[in-house]
């Protein structure tokens, strides 16, 4: 039976990694191979994704079972689950992969793969895909927005107005200029480069840390994060979370960034030693912080709630209607490619 024609099939390249992935279209009829694909969705982060998966595949919703019963739930459905869709909240760790002997593909609805046990996937020859590029702009936009909000105290000023203090207490205070400040970026990948491009429009000098110097940029390279922190005003975390980068922003880095420095984390909570961050901010050793991610989301250290030099947002780096749909379409497109034996759109393994 010929698979139903859909936009995924129009691209015409035989490469394992499709350089021009055509967007998945929710208007097309799913091929039979999709309808029989058992997919485990780990977390209800994206209602459009959930809806499409339930229309097109055999969907299993992990969160409908309490975590203590997951092993049982997985055992009961292990025969049917051939695909897993993970998020930045719940991915596919070794235990979960072991419980799913029929698993063929992990399609993460994120670009970060810190919640996927890649070594285990490699061992089991399980394919892995993520959602790069479609979310780069939104994350970079937020990084700059958070930096400006912190330096210029926009959230605090908004609170000042809403509380009636402008009337009662007079003018809000002076804040710190953003334009022209040196930006230090940890990780010069897609997101790091997009942040740099935006910051340049504000006449900010750019410097960065990476495992190795990047050949095609004019930005100033530092081979140590502490040196980067000592030489920039605003430090932005934009690298992948791996064993090596856990707590890459530690006490020494924060002290180097200093009492006028601002830390922006749009990476992963564990990039930053959160306990040290809280004391550095409370003690004034660090000037300010803007955090989109935390070590134990959705829990945020309450000692931060009263500070006026921090901005705290609930992991919204990709949280726009447009981007969440594009991420979901990329997940669906990868699953469909897998189900119909076509080259995956954005494979990592």
């Amino acid at each position, binding site marked *: 039976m010929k698979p139903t024609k859909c936009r995924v099939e129009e691209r015409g390249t035989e490469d394992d990694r499709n350089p021009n992935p055509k967007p998945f279209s929710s208007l097309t009829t799913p091929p039979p191979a999709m309808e029989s694909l058992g997919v485990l969705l780990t977390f209800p*982060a994206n209602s459009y994704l959930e809806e499409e998966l339930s229309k097109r595949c055999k969907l299993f919703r992990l969160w409908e079972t309490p975590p203590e019963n997951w092993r049982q739930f997985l055992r009961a459905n292990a025969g049917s689950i051939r695909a897993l869709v993970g998020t930045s909240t719940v991915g596919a760790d070794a235990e979960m992969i072991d419980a799913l002997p029929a698993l063929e593909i992990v399609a993460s609805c994120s670009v970060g793969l810190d919640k996927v046990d890649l070594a285990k996937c490699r061992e089991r020859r399980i394919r892995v895909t993520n959602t790069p590029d479609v979310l780069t*702009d*939104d994350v970079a*936009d*937020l990084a*700059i*927005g*958070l930096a*400006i*909000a912190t330096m*210029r105290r*926009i*959230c605090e*000023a*908004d*609170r*000042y*107005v*809403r509380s009636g203090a*402008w*009337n009662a207490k*007079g*003018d*809000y205070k*002076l*804040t*710190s*200029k*953003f*334009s*022209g400040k040196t930006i230090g970026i940890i990780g010069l990948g897609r997101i790091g480069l997009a942040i740099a*491009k*935006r910051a*340049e*429009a*504000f*006449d900010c000098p750019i410097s960065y840390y990476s495992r190795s110097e990047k050949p095609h940029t004019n930005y100033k390279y530092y081979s140590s994060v502490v040196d980067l922190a000592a030489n920039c005003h605003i430090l932005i975390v934009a690298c992948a979370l791996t064993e090596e980068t856990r707590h890459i922003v530690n006490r020494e880095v924060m002290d180097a960034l200093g009492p006028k420095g601002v830390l922006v984390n749009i990476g992963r909570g564990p990039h930053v030693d959160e306990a040290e961050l809280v004391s550095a901010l409370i003690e004034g050793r660090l000037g300010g912080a803007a955090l989109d991610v935390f070590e134990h*989301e*959705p*829990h*945020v250290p*309450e000692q931060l*709630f009263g500070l006026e030099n921090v*901005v*705290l*947002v*609930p*992991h*919204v780096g990709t*949280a*726009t*209607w*447009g*981007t*969440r749909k594009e991420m979901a379409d990329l997940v669906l497109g990868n699953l469909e490619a897998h189900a119909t034996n076509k080259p995956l759109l954005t494979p990592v393994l």
Partner: protein
Amino acid sequence: MASSEEQPESRPPVLLLRMVAPAYDDAVSAKFHVLRPWESPLPRDQFLAAHAGSVRALLISSLVTLDDATLDALPRLGCVVTTSSGVNHIDLAACARRGIAVANAGTVFSADAADYAVGLLIDVLRRVSTSDRYVRRGLWPVKGDYPLGFKLGGKRVGIVGLGSIGSETAKRLVAFGCTILYYSRKNKPSVPYKYFPNVCDLAAESDILIVSCALTSETHHIINKDVMTALGKEGIIVNVGRGPLVDEAELVRRLMQGELGGAGLDVFENEPAVPKELFLMDNVVLTPHRAIFTSESLADLGQLLVANLEAFFSNRPLLTPVNHNDL
């Protein structure tokens, strides 16, 4: 800080009519003999008469209205320096007739205002302030993820007034993948953005309007009901100009009825009064007229004020002169 009484008064006098920000008074006092009428027991007109023979330079903020009557009292005046960019408080024609040179703040504050406009816009679209409040109230573990916001990339941004602040804002937003359109009194063929000769037409082709023009009698309520209709129900308005550039009552009404997508407002018609209906909204960001107030820019302006006064007293051209024919 050197007290002016301790030095022989060879430094040229600079007159203030009202207080200016301490940062500016300090910067100017370091180099000039600053005259502060309110510190004198003499009534104002006698104080001015006593100093009329020696005062050649005047430093004012936008709170002083400089008109013919005041100029009459200062016959030797040759230079007026204002701490603001705007000059609608100064009768420029009267100054020109008397050969008085006028200097303003030039572009000292433009980057800050542009940064703030971009910051407000990202905040409104991505719900930064609102979701920050959500987190601080402990709602994330209780109510789950915050509702989605909207992308900035790819949006059409209409800049109302492509002066220094408008241009700096445009340059920044281009880097975010926005398409820039603009309205200005005159077409600027050297800029790469599409020009619209009226604000309604601009609004019809924009997703976002950023208001950064000067307030004059022509631009009062330049963002009116027709413009808001043309912008549409999902449109966003960011105002870093002056409150009266926007019909505030109409703006509030539309926001309440879901006929406008959101607003980022640094200025209001009757500051510090802000319409209370706005306090309940998650798609607005409200700031207390602070777009240009950074310690760096105040320091830069202090230096610029001194530099303009030094230029005047050395018979050199002012650094940031205002020509009344430009406006």
